[in-house]
Each structure stands twice: as structure tokens, then as C-alpha cells.
């Protein structure tokens, strides 16, 4: 259940795939397993502003509702609208098909504050 090395993480279990100024965000497999079966993902609209450390959406499972947090600030450039019909992807393919939003970062320095995969795996051995 190791978190992949190609991305960075928050302590609130969101992964951040950084490609230049574009950051793709989803939640980790550990988070998905803890929430159990996901039933609903509420995401912002394209163009919305996202602030580091603030909630950008909500995720609902048969057990709980949680907020989704971004580790970086920016503007939403794309939203995975398929999750509306396929919330189960968050459980089955947390790091792939279940990406949630893409951001154009406004403060790339924030990326440096995120956890590396090693740090995340050590903190949350699953």
C-alpha cells in the first residue's frame, strides 16, 4: 500500500502530482481504505480558486463525510467529472482514474512544504 514516489502528499492524505505549474490532486489509498466505500465526491468548478490548507471539496462514504484539502494554492483548470458516476474509482484506482482536480499553481513554493512519498509512508505505514 506504499504511496507512489512520483508525487507529494499532505498529512490529510491528499496526493499531489506536480508537473511544471500544473498540480493534479487526489486522495491516497490509505485514506480511501479508511473511508471505505466512497459514494459521492463533491468537487469545485473549473476556474474556482483554491487556497493551500483550505477545503476544496467533500467526499462521502458509507461511513463518513470528509473535506478534501489542497496543499497548494491555485486556480482549478480541470475537474474529473467522471467521478460523479464512478465514485468507486476512488477505492479501486486511488492514484490513477480517481484524480480529482488539476490546479494551475499560483505559489509553486508551497510544493516544497508537502511530504515526500518516503515521509508519507513512514508517517502512515498503513
Amino acid at each position, binding site marked *: 500500500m506504499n504511496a507512489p514516489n512520483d508525487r507529494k502528499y499532505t498529512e490529510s492524505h491528499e496526493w499531489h502530482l506536480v508537473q511544471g505549474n500544473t498540480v493534479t490532486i487526489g486522495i491516497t489509498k490509505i485514506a480511501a481504505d*479508511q473511508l471505505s*466505500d466512497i*459514494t*459521492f465526491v463533491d468537487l469545485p468548478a473549473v476556474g474556482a480558486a483554491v487556497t493551500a490548507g483550505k477545503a476544496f471539496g467533500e467526499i*462521502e462514504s*458509507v*461511513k*463518513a463525510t470528509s473535506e478534501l484539502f489542497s496543499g497548494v494554492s491555485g486556480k482549478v483548470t480541470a475537474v474529473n467529472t467522471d467521478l460523479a458516476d464512478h*465514485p*468507486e474509482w476512488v477505492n479501486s484506482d486511488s492514484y490513477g482514474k480517481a484524480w480529482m482536480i488539476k490546479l494551475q499553481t499560483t505559489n509553486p513554493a508551497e510544493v516544497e512544504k508537502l511530504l515526500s512519498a518516503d515521509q508519507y509512508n513512514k508517517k502512515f505505514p498503513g
Partner: protein
Amino acid sequence: MESSVEQGLALLFEESSAGNCAVSLPPNDVSDAREGTRGLKPAARYEGIPAGLLAGEPPPLPEIGEQDLVRHYTRLSHRTFSVDANFYPLGSCTMKYNPKINEAAASMPEFLNLHPYQPADQVQGILELLYQTRVFLQEISGLAEVTLQPAAGAHGEMTGLMVISAYHRDRGEDRINVLVPDSAHGTNPASCTVCSRVAQTVASKPNGRVDLDDLRKKVDRNTAALMLTNPNTVGVFDEQIGDIADILHKQGAMLYMDGANLNAMLGIMRPGDFGVDCMHINTHKTFSTPHGCGGPGSGPVAVTNQLSPFLPIPQVIKKSDGTYDWDENRPKTIGKVRSFYGQIGVLVRCYAYIRSLGPDGLRNASEKAVLSANYLAARLKGHYKLPFAGPYAHEFIMIPEFGDSGVTELDIAKRLIDHNFHPPTMSWPVHHCLMIEPTETESLRTLDSFADCLIKIAREAKETPDLVKNAPHHAPVKRLDEVAAARKPNLRWQA
């Protein structure tokens, strides 16, 4: 497979057969549309009403005879699970037995038939009861004054935070932050938001107590209060409470106590004595009103002298001539938080409970609640993981850990249903846990049969995990597909 009708699970619609009827209506002697149209065909009877608004046929209501209708609802009522029928060890909710004398008191016509607009001199009886209840709760909490107005626990939290905010504002301070431990009830941060305060999380130590270093770091002159449940949600009493109060008070912040777990300390210790400034009391839990599934609750708030000028109005008072009245004269009050005077029916039950047990009886109830929880924990240790060390207050949490069997807390809960035990609180406040609160009224025999059952389920989880994972086997409804129900809800019967 049996049909839903054969299983006794049919909806009224499925039990319907044409021509049956549970009531005999007299012949219709009232014209239902226009004068003089009775007996005419519908088309003529409803002349003038636009065709688009007329239903073509009567609605397809179920057609059922009286006896079948009675049996339908009687069957459903027999499936109702209640603490009057079975053990209900629901942690953090104090689903205790509610003595029937409370119901007798609350049903007295002298209380039932009162009107809230009656003048005080006509309702001295209920005013005396409310005043005495207020005095009892002041004594039990060790605090200076109680308002009975809030209608539920979370409403009490809101009222308490409003009172604390009004106190700080009165001193010229707008303290925006409220600290909440990470093990808190979800209502705590929600109440902060409702009161326009910002909730900040305080970490807990691995032993379940507040991390004092983290608390010291986070308390400053912008801190309005800390909201603490003690004994806390993992079932342990935080004996650092005096230090916690000192850390807050040094910065002018208040210590708010969530009274959800008051059932562990009646007559043993008083929150006011260990530094609490403000707390709510879930009288429906601790002082025994049947609750759950939406009500009714009641959440009186107790405060120190420092905070009492800000309590809601009206306040019930005893005048120097011995009569009772409503006092509205509080210049600093936050105002009313509810219409009229609170949940009177719940407060009557609270009064009856306190009076029938008396001070020694209340203490005895708490001692037994604590003893029962610790007895169950001792019996289950070794069969389940107990992540926090005892001694416990009136509840404890345990985690089913059965390695590769894949048996989870949900499976244990479902298997308990097969043995007529209500499943305990699940998956909160610690992942994968079960939170067990036996309360004071269960006999040793019941506690033992519950412990025996959980030990048997632990054995099944290791030896025959599928038996547990497919439970319940003896309930009218088997394992439900909760995922499909949430993702594709089917909310309406269709033919």
C-alpha cells in the same frame, strides 16, 4: 426464495388486493365539486376545471382489510428494538434504562395541560419543579447557575459558546478561536462554526489524554475556550484537567465541558470543582428520557458566576416571599435561545429521576455504570485489542484484530444482532473500534451473556470468519448493500 409477503416484509402496497378496505365510509352526502353534480359522470362533474389538472383515475392506494392492516403494523412494532426489550450498549450515547415512574410524572394532566402563556401565579407547580431542577443541576455540576432553555446537547453547546463570546465581548475582546481535541464529538467544531468562531484542533497523546504541550502552544489571547469532553470519548478520565484549566485561565480563556459523559461522575466529582467554567448537561441521557432517532433532547447549560449575567432569559427564580416567577431583567443576557422555557417534558423526567434516586442513588448509579464498563473491559481483554489502558470511566473502546480473516468491526456488530444485542457505536472515535457503554442498570447476568457472546464471536472470527462476515443470519433482513443504497438510492415503491 420466499417472497417479501411470505417473509412478512411486504409493504402495504404489496399486500394490497382489489376490493379490500379497512374502513366503512357512510354514503357521500356532500357534493364534491359543484352543487347539483352528484351522480353525474366525472367529465360533467368537473366541468370548468382544466383537463390537465384532473387526475384520470383515483390514486393507486393500497386496498387492505382492517385486520391485515392491524397485523402489518403490529408485526413492524414487534421488530422495534428498544432498551425495554434488549441490551443496548451504545457508547457515548448513554442509552440507559428510563424508569417508568418518569413517564407517569410527565403524563400527569397537571403538567400536560399547562399552557405556556398562563401567568406565573397559575403555574406555581411547574415553576417550582423547574426551579428545583435548576438548583439540582447546579449542585451536581458544582457551578453557580443553570439555564434550562436549550433543547438538546448541541443546542447547549451553542448556548454555552454564545455566553462565553458575550463575556469576552463585554470585556472588549473578540476571541475568535475555540480549541477542540481531536477526539471530540463532531458537534463541538460544528457549534464553533454556528457561533462564528474558528475551531482549532488540539492533539491527543497516545494514552488518549490532551497533549498539554500542544495545548500550551495553541492557547493565546485569541482563544475563547477549549471544548473538552471528560471523561473523554475514548473512555478515560483526563486527570490533567486541573492543569488544562490553569493553562486556559492564565490566558483568560474558558474551559467548556461537553457533558455527554456526565453519567460517569454523578455525586463523585463536580466539573465546577476541577475548573470548568461552562458545560451542558444532556438531561435526556444522564437523567433518563427515552431518546435517539431524533428526540426529544434537552441541554441545560451550567456556568460560573463570571458567566451567569449572560445566560438566556427568562430565568425561573424563587422570590423572597417563597413564590416562583420568570426573571427577564438581565441587561447582559444573550436573549432567548428557544421559544418558551425549554423541553419541559424532558425536564419533568429529569426531576423525577433525581428525586427518586436522591444524592446517594445518583452516586450509586454512576459507580455501577463505571464498574459495569470496567468489568466488561476486563472480561474482553485478550479477546479484543483495548488500545487505551484502564481504568475506564463508564465506557471503553476495543478494536477487533483478527489478522488475515478480514473480519472488521462492522462484522462483529452484525453478528451481535444474531444474538439480540444492539450493536455498539462503531468506527469512532478511533478507526475500526467498537465503543461499549453498558450503563448502570444491567445485571451481572446480562453483562456476562454479552461478554460470552463477544468472546464467542472472537473465536468465530478466527475459526469460521465467513460465519461472522455474512451475519446477521437470524434477523428479518440480512446484510444490506449499503454501497448500492448510497450510490443508487431507491426511495419510492414502484409497481
